[in-house]
Structures are given as structure tokens and as C-alpha cells.
């Protein structure tokens, strides 16, 4: 793998060098970033090969967010680069085709000019032969060659119509060629041959025209040669560029694809490790859950058994031998019974708490109004005894576990009634409103956008100091001596458990001596599975 990365790096450095020459700065930065990224991958791979552990792979020198930004940036740049390169490649290709055409055009012009000069010589030669040998065979030859002249000049005309100076020369050339043809035609007449004076005059004129034509052709040839030279040079230049662009595009594509492959491969590998990690954690969780269940059973049965015996026998001693035992022994027996009883309560509470941890049933749509009524009727004795007043707004329905929610409301209500101020009638007000997840302190990131039901229990009880707001939810945590208020301190721990079973939150705030508020947040859309 490392070897592959070095192989990948090599064309990168070549490209950085090449792009430096071409002054393509974007290209250069792009390749720099790419090589940094690849070194990052390289580094993590090296770290892995040194020590094959999950931790080192999960450790990255770039954060998730940085990586995502860089990946997007690279992808965008690569795309733009490939499009831009393809576009300019196309442009260059067009130029190349254009210049190739021009080169062949120039070559045609040169060819035609050469043909013209040879035709002129041929005509001239045939005419001369006729004049000196008086053989009429040469008349036809002369006229046939003469006809070709105008044809060639016309084709040259169509080839160099885009070139001004050459056009001008061609006009001269045409004029001379016309005169030349005219002289030839007149020379080739049988009537002229018999008149030596006319022949001599025409012969001289024809030779003059020939000279001018040859001179013009030479000039034009020179110009066309020059043109050919520059055009061939441009064409070769473009050809070279096309060749370069081909390579650059290919390399960019290769670099882009292979870096995408490396990143993807790395993410997939990391993903696999995360999955294994998660599976391990789930397995541990299941194990600890089943251990907890076993513990609950042990607590319910085996731990209670000896306690029951202690109580039963000490009780029996008291009831049967009350009159015989001394007072001191009797008091000791009562204390034994009290302690055993207290331990029994603790075990029972622990058991009910662990039963709540284990959910078991399926969630159903539960009306919190009905839950509130159930809780109130369960507490009816306590409510009438303390003359408590409970007023509640209309409460919503949520997906949840009915018996747990009854327990939650019941615990909160009984708590408020239990901790009332002396000689003050307990008043509990329950209100409901909707709150967005991000406004609740300590929500998980995935719950930020969920709407929660806030149910507030406000009482006028004794309250507690601010610093205990979190502690009161801890199992067996109490703020008062047992002689002041009875109980083991399980009530609010169960409340917290019920609320977290429903993926919700519970908070308390209070002013000592004035009352406390308990806030329950339950998600409005079910998150239970």
C-alpha cells in the first residue's frame, strides 16, 4: 500500500514541476493539497503497520470536518480542472486542424505555381519549336499548353483569396500570363510564321512576358515558402501541446481517481472498525444487562430469604417470650427487627428499580391525562390525608410504557406531598408546553431538532438547595435524616430511569423553603424501538 502511495506521489511531483513551467498556479496548489492528503493517508497506514490496532486507525491527523471540506474542495477542483483542460484541449485541437489545412493549402499553392512555371516553359518551348521548325504539329501542342495557363491561374486564385499581397501579385501575374497567351496565340497562327518581322517582334514580347511571369512566380514562391515555414511551425507547436494536454488530462484523472479510491478505501476500512467496535459494545451491554437481571433475581430471592428468617425468629421470640426476657434483650430484638426491616425495604426498592431498567413490554400510545388520573387514584389516601390540591392542564398522549409513566407521576406527586411545609396545604400545579430539543440542556446531537413535551410539576413544598439539584436523582441519595422523613431514596432515581427509558430528560430546580419545580421532557415523536 505504501509503495502504491509513493508511486502515486511520483506523477504528482512531475506534475507539480510541469505545472510550474506552464505557470498554471491553480494546478500547482491542487497538486500540493493532494500530496499532503496522500501523505496523511500514508502516515496513518504507516502507523497501522507499526502497531495493528483499531485505535491507531481511528486516529487521524485531520478531523472529520476538515477531511470532508478538503474532499469536497478536491472534487470540485478536479472537476473544474478536467472540464477546463478538456475545453482548452478542444480549442487547441481546432487550431491544429486549422493550421494543418492552411499548410496543405500553401503546399497546393506552391505546387500550382511550379506547375504554372513549367507550363509556361512548355508553351514557350512548343512555340519556339514551331517558329524555327515550321512544323504544324507544334501548333496544337502550343495551344493545348497555352490553355492550361489560365486554368492554373484560376485555381491559384481560389487558393490565395485570403492573402492580400499575394493576390496583388497574382493580378500582375494574370495580366502577364494573359499577354503571354495572347502573344503565343498570335505566334501560332500560320499567317504570322510567314512574316519574319512580326515573328521577331512577337518572339521578343513573349520572352519579356515569360521573364516577368517567372520573376513573379519566384516572388510568390518565396512568400509561400515563408508562409509554409511559419505554418508548419505553428502546427507542430500545437501538435506538441495536444500531446502534452493529453498527458495532463490523463494524469489529473488518474490522480483524482486514485485519491478518491484511497479515501474511499480508508473510509470503508474505518467504517468496518467502527462496526466491529459497536458490535463489541452491544455485546458487552447485553451481557451486563443479563447480569443485572440475574442480580435482580438474587436480590429478590436469595438475599431476602435470610432476612425474612431473622425477622420471623426474632419476632417469634418476642411474641412467645415477651414476659420472660429482660427489657434490654427485648430492645435489642426490636432493633434487630427494625434493621432487618429496613434492609428488606432497601432490597425491595433496588429490585423495583432493576425491574424498571428491564423494559420487557412493547411501547403503546399512552394518554398522560389518564396516567395522571391513575397516579392520583393510587395516591388518593395520601392526598386526602394531607388535603393536597393537584391541578393539571390537559396533557398530551405519547408513545411509552404505561405502568412506568404511572410510577413516574406517582413518585413525583408523592414526593411533593411528602415534602410539604409544616402547616401549609400542599399545592401541586402541572403544566404542559412544547419545547424544541436544542433548548434543553444536555440533549444529544441527534435530538436537537426534535420537539419535546415539557411537563412541569410545581409545588409549594420545603424545596432544597441548588447544589442538590442533580444529587436527588441518585439512587438511595437522601437529603434528610430518616427520622425526619421516611423512605429509602429510590423514588426520584426511578423517575430518572423511567424518563431515560423514554429517551427524555428530567431536571429539578428549587428555592429552599418556597417549593420546587420538576421538569420532564419527553420526545413528541416516538424514538422507542
Amino acid at each position, binding site marked *: 500500500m505504501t509503495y502504491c502511495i509513493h508511486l502515486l506521489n511520483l506523477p504528482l511531483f512531475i506534475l507539480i514541476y510541469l505545472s510550474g513551467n506552464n505557470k498554471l498556479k491553480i494546478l500547482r496548489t491542487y497538486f500540493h493539497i493532494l500530496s499532503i492528503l496522500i501523505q496523511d493517508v500514508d502516515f496513518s497506514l504507516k502507523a497501522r503497520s507499526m502497531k495493528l490496532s483499531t485505535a491507531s486507525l481511528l486516529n487521524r491527523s485531520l478531523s472529520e470536518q476538515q477531511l470532508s471540506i478538503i474532499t469536497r474542495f478536491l472534487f470540485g477542483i478536479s472537476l473544474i480542472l478536467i472540464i477546463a483542460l478538456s475545453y482548452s484541449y478542444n480549442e487547441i485541437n481546432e487550431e491544429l486542424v486549422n493550421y494543418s489545412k492552411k499548410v496543405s493549402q500553401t503546399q497546393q499553392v506552391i505546387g500550382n505555381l511550379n506547375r504554372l512555371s513549367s507550363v509556361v516553359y512548355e508553351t514557350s518551348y512548343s512555340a519556339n519549336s514551331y517558329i524555327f521548325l515550321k512544323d504544324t504539329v507544334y501548333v496544337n501542342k502550343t495551344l493545348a499548353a497555352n490553355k492550361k495557363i489560365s486554368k492554373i491561374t484560376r485555381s491559384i486564385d481560389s487558393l490565395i483569396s485570403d492573402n492580400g499581397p499575394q493576390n496583388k501579385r497574382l493580378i500582375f501575374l494574370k495580366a502577364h500570363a494573359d499577354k503571354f497567351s495572347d502573344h503565343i496565340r498570335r505566334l501560332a497562327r500560320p499567317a504570322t510564321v510567314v512574316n519574319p518581322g512580326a515573328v521577331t517582334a512577337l518572339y521578343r514580347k513573349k520572352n519579356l512576358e515569360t521573364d516577368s511571369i517567372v520573376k513573379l512566380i519566384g516572388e510568390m514562391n518565396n512568400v509561400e515558402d515563408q508562409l509554409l515555414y511559419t505554418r508548419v511551425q505553428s502546427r507542430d507547436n500545437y501538435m506538441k501541446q495536444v500531446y502534452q494536454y493529453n498527458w495532463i488530462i490523463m494524469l489529473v484523472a488518474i490522480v483524482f481517481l486514485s485519491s478518491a479510491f484511497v479515501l474511499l478505501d480508508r473510509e470503508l476500512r474505518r467504517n468496518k472498525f467502527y462496526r466491529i467496535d459497536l458490535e463489541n459494545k452491544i455485546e458487552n451491554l447485553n451481557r451486563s444487562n443479563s447480569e443485572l437481571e440475574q442480580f435482580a433475581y438474587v436480590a*429478590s430471592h436469595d438475599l*431476602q430469604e435470610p432476612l425474612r428468617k431473622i425477622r420471623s425468629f426474632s419476632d417469634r421470640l418476642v411474641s412467645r417470650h415477651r414476659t420472660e426476657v429482660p427489657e434490654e434483650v427485648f430492645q435489642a430484638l426490636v432493633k434487630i427487627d427494625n434493621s432487618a426491616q429496613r434492609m428488606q425495604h432497601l432490597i425491595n426498592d433496588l429490585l423495583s428499580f432493576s425491574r424498571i431498567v428491564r423494559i420487557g413490554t412493547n411501547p403503546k400510545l399512552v394518554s398522560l391525562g389518564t396516567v395522571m388520573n391513575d397516579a392520583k387514584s393510587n395516591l388518593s389516601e395520601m392526598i386526602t390525608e394531607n388535603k393536597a390540591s393537584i391541578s393539571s392542564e390537559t396533557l398530551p398522549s405519547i408513545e411509552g410504557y404505561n405502568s412506568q409513566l404511572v410510577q413516574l407521576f406517582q413518585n413525583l406527586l408523592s414526593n411533593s406531598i411528602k415534602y410539604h411545609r409544616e402547616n401549609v396545604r400542599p399545592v401541586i400545579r402541572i403544566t404542559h408546553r412544547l419545547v424544541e430539543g436544542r433548548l434543553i440542556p444536555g440533549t444529544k446531537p441527534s435530538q436537537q431538532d426534535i420537539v419535546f413535551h415539557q411537563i412541569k410539576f410545581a409545588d409549594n413544598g420545603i424545596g432544597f438547595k441548588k447544589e442538590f439539584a442533580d444529587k436527588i436523582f441518585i439512587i438511595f441519595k437522601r437529603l434528610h435524616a430518616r427520622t425526619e422523613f421516611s423512605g429509602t431514596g429510590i423514588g426520584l432515581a426511578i423517575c430518572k430511569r423511567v424518563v431515560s427509558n423514554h429517551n427524555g430528560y428530567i431536571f429539578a430546580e428549587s428555592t429552599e423553603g418556597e417549593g420546587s419545580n420538576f421538569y420532564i421532557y419527553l420526545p413528541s415523536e416516538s424514538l422507542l424501538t
Partner: protein
Amino acid sequence: MADDDADDRFLVKAAFEDNNLTNTLLFFEDGEQLVQYFTSNENLNLPHMVLLDLNMPKRDGKEVLKVIRKDNRWDNVPVIIFSTSNAPDDIFVSYQLGANCYIVKPSNYEDLKELIFNVHNFWLGNKATPY
């Protein structure tokens, strides 16, 4: 009564005595012994009532209950489950298997005495049992 715990057997016996109840009491140390008692005797006197603990070695209370309810020679004997457990599962299964009553063992002697008195009154007092 079938219970593996000698103390519990003693306490139940004491509760009967302290209530001045003179019924014949038979004790078994595990479920297997109770089942043997039922199956080995050809012309046995079927009990008026069985007090059955759930958590016992060899055969636990639920298995014994199944055996008792399967055989039509004694499937109508009243069976009272008498267990320490107050787990909803245990209670539910016991009734499903055909227990007549489920009583959680009380945690002090006074309560036990009262309970035995009440059970006696309810199940044995009016002699309206099948045997």
C-alpha cells in the same frame, strides 16, 4: 407442605400450633418427594390442601404443579403457592399452571401466624374441599 427450607417448615408448623390448629401436617423436603408421595401410594389419603414452595431442588414448584394438574386422580387438590418471590412472572405462570392461590411468604412471624389462621379458615374451615 413442600419446602426445602427447614426453618420455613418449622415456622409454618409453629404457626399451626400457636393458632391451636390440629390438622395433620405432612412435610416434604423437595418437589420430588411430594410427587413420589402422590404416585407411589395406591390408596392414599389425598391432602385437603398443598402448600407449595416454588424454588426447590430436584423438582421445583412449577414442575410439581404441572404433575399434579396432569393426573386426573388428584388434579382437583387445592394447591397454594407459598413462595418468597413476588416477581410478576412467577405469579403469572403459577396461576397459568393451575395454582388456586399465590401467597408471598410474610416477612415476620406475627403476619405468618395470622396468614396461616386465615388460610386455614378459608380453605379448610368449612370442609368444602374435594377430599
